[in-house]
């Protein structure tokens, strides 16, 4: 099996996944979708770290940074989901078009 990596295709995939994540964050109004877009964006970043570590001959460093990004992604996703639950409790909606009141 040929496991040689074509870096152009790898970088293209990273850019495509990051672009789809940004597109999801910008165009979708459902907060779940926005959080999924953020998750896709962090996956692209993680892939970029691992690819860069392999490309520059430092797989340990790339792997370490990837692990750090994965853990931070999980923490941010957990906080974001709890915020969505609270927003739903207050407003009864998870669509950002229906959440326009900003009161303390």
């Amino acid at each position, binding site marked *: 099996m040929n496991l040689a990596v074509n870096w152009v295709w790898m970088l293209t995939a990273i850019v495509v996944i990051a672009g789809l994540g940004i597109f999801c964050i910008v165009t979708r109004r459902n907060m779940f979708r926005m959080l999924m877009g953020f998750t896709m964006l962090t996956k692209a970043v993680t892939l970029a770290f691992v690819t860069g570590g392999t490309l520059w001959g430092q797989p340990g460093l790339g792997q370490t940074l990837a692990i750090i990004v*994965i853990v931070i992604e999980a923490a941010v996703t957990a906080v974001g989901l709890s915020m969505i639950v609270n927003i739903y409790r207050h407003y009864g909606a998870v669509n950002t078009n229906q959440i326009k009141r900003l009161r303390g």
Partner: protein
Amino acid sequence: MLIYVLLALMALSAILVIFCRDLLYAVISLGTLSVFTSILFYILGSPFASIMELSIGAGLITILFMATISLVEQPRVGHAKYSGRSSISFFALAAVVATTIWVALSLAEGVPGPAAAASAAALPEVLWGIRLLDVMGLSVVIFTASIGIGVLFRTEGGK
């Protein structure tokens, strides 16, 4: 060849996350994206990152999303029209199973042993040496996130 197939499947999963109407299907696509990413990490010689991505990205985050969606979404009254979709779902499931078997067989043929072993040996000294400050910051982030979740779910005076 395997890497290109994985990259294409990752892009397809990301597109499905955005354009699936049902949120649960989108979450499943997100988990599938994590699975493909972890396989790619393993091929690139990063076994620990692969394990973390598989357990946290495909496991924990998917379960968190599903639990929250089941908390927030209203239960559906009546059944959706599945009559036209059953054959499409069957073919999609068959394609996923066939792809999984093919990826597993391809991995069994050429496991990236030396690269993965070298990367695994280099990880502890990088993680606990050069990037020790990052690891300490990471523990602070996790602690802060747990406190934040506790504050968000706080109930005041039995309300």
